């Protein structure tokens, strides 16, 4: 995503016809209408912050997936597919599916039974106030800053792709989000994520269909890609036996353990931005089914993200280049591949829909950040540390104002990034510092009753500090990457994976050592929070095809089949 922000090409990539503008304007009108309609249904704390906890499995599941299906992710991963080939698919399959199923079947019951409003809220119940404070403050701070970075990034993309003024993009999108989230709360954010999900599929699915038609089918596409690059661009696993056998410079151990086990588990199971959508489910079965539904659709996303990048490798007449070269030469960069493919196949109307899908992805991502920030600020910072005696109405009012203030802070961050571009790198890196250690703390808290409050706090703190330490080491001395990622051939993405792995291990080891050295917690304090001391409610007497375990098994089979097919 960082690469998307570099100074862009001076000419716009696509030109919108009047019909395209009408489609974009209709989207803005519709989301504001939805926010206005939901205004009267966000009067209590449960309504505003948790969408009344009445979402069905389908709504919660698609919202859970959409929170991670932003425009920058789509464009960035399509660019990565052009650069690294089909390896980019790992971030959608092994980098998501096992984690989503783990969340559904193992962790979700504890989040749900504890009736917590947030992930930091669970940490308070399990490890006490210091762990909650550390997690809540870091999450709130980073979320609102990330929202600003994303806001600037998207405005920059709109400038490059459409030639729109940056200030116009920032203010129109942020004011729209501020209005509909402050009116309808989480329910409004979720509704718009559903809308975004359909718009993205409607706007992007034609590209791979027409692209495969032009390339002459998958078999011909592979031949063309191999001729222009190498055979390893269309194999997911066969080149991962060594660091040098694939375009990414990564080993299968990093992919499986760093990405699949730690980074993905950390993101999908503890990042409150996505978990909040599941907490809004109406019952335990819906809460378990939602991540499984999300996983089912997540497996399909590479067909609208990675496949266009691969098709671009085969059919685009020009060769795309890294952002640094594109900036110097005026050529198109890897990250331009999705807009280029959009412009290649989509005439008036379809182009408007594709651009609307990108805008919707960006805005719902911002709404997700803002709604998560609002909940954590109100319930995990303001209520415990500032005003613990307010009425429910007071906290709803605080939520509405926090939404607006959060958006304004994001706008301020966006302008700060505009002036000092290097800030963006630091903010993005800071966010990654907290995810992997947080997963270690939460999963030990749920699965190991011997973990103590001191163990949880010190494990989280040391894991986070170790992550910051590794990042700083590589920043100051880039050659240190060979030690962090275990290979002189490792590249940037490999650093992310191994940094997550090591910080997770530091968190786990410190938690275990400190816990064993401190007094165990009494069983009464852990009831409802830890395996072995919690009676997990059954999903009810439902037919086999309605059981989460049944669908998780089907998703698992399809997951393995896809990996074998594209081995």
């Amino acid at each position: 995503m960082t690469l998307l922000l570099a100074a862009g090409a001076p000419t716009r990539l696509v030109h919108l016809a009047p019909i395209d503008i009408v489609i974009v304007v209709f989207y803005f009108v519709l989301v504001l209408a939805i926010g206005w309609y939901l205004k009267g249904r966000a009067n209590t704390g449960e309504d505003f912050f948790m969408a009344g906890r009445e979402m069905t499995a389908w709504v919660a599941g698609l919202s859970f997936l959409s929170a991670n299906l932003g425009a920058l992710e789509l464009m960035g991963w399509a660019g990565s597919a052009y650069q690294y080939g089909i390896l980019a698919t790992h971030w959608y399959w092994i980098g998501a599916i096992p984690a989503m199923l783990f969340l559904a079947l193992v962790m979700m019951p504890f989040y749900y039974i504890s009736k917590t409003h947030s992930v930091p809220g669970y940490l308070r119940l399990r490890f006490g106030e210091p762990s909650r404070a550390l997690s809540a403050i870091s999450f709130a701070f980073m979320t609102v800053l990330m929202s600003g970075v994303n806001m600037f990034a998207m405005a920059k993309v709109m400038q490059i792709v459409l030639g729109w003024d940056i200030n116009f993009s920032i203010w129109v999108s942020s004011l729209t989000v501020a209005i509909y989230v402050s009116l309808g709360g989480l329910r409004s954010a979720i509704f718009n994520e559903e809308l975004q999900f359909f718009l993205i599929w409607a706007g992007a699915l034609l590209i791979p269909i027409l692209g495969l038609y032009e390339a002459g089918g998958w078999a011909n596409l592979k031949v063309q890609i191999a001729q222009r690059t190498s055979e390893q661009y269309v194999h997911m696993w066969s080149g991962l036996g060594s660091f040098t056998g694939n375009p990414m410079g990564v080993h299968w151990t990093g992919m499986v353990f760093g990405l699949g086990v730690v980074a993905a588990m950390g993101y999908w199971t503890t990042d409150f931005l996505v978990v909040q959508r599941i907490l809004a489910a109406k019952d335990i079965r819906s809460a378990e089914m939602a991540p499984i539904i999300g996983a089912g659709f997540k497996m399909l996303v590479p067909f609208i993200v990675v496949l266009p990048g691969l098709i671009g490798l085969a059919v685009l007449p020009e060769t795309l280049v890294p952002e640094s070269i594109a900036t110097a030469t005026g050529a198109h960069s890897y990250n331009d591949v999705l807009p280029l493919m959009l412009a290649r196949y989509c005439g008036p109307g379809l182009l408007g829909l594709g651009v609307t899908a990108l805008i919707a992805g960006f805005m719902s991502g911002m709404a997700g950040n803002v709604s998560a920030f609002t909940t954590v600020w109100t319930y995990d910072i303001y209520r415990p540390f500032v005003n613990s005696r307010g009425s429910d109405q007071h906290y709803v009012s605080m939520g509405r104002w926090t939404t607006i203030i959060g958006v304004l802070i994001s706008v301020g961050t966006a302008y700060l990034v505009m002036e000092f571009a290097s800030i963006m790198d630091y903010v993005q890196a800071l966010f990654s510092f907290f995810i992997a250690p947080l997963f270690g703390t939460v999963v030990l808290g749920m699965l190991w009753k011997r973990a103590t409050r001191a163990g949880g706090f010190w494990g989280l703190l040391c894991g986070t500090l170790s992550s910051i330490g590794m990042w700083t080491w590589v920043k100051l001395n880039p050659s240190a990457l060979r030690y962090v990622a275990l290979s002189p051939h490792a590249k940037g993405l490999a650093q992310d994976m191994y940094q997550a792995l090591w910080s997770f291990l530091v968190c786990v080891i410190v938690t275990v050592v400190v816990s064993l050295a401190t007094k165990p917690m009494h069983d009464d304090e852990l009831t409802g929070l830890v395996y072995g001391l919690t009676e997990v409610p059954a999903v009810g007497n439902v037919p086999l095809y309605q059981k989460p375990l049944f669908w998780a098994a089907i998703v698992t089979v399809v997951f393995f089949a896809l990996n074998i097919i594209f081995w």
Partner: protein
Amino acid sequence: MISIWFFIGVSLLVNGVLIMGAGIWDVLYPPENPVVLFSLHANLWWGLALTLSGIVYCVKFAPKRKT
């Protein structure tokens, strides 16, 4: 409460009609610089598919009148 699926139906229907209209216009007045695979008239049939999907969603999830 109006279902989210109804709003999605409205979105699909309106976008579908607009895109299909653009497709018909392109058939009647072919552009000077057509997109790749213009001969397939993707906007026409994709707009039609969105319109039909939108109709199904709008009808199935239409707000019910109180009697």
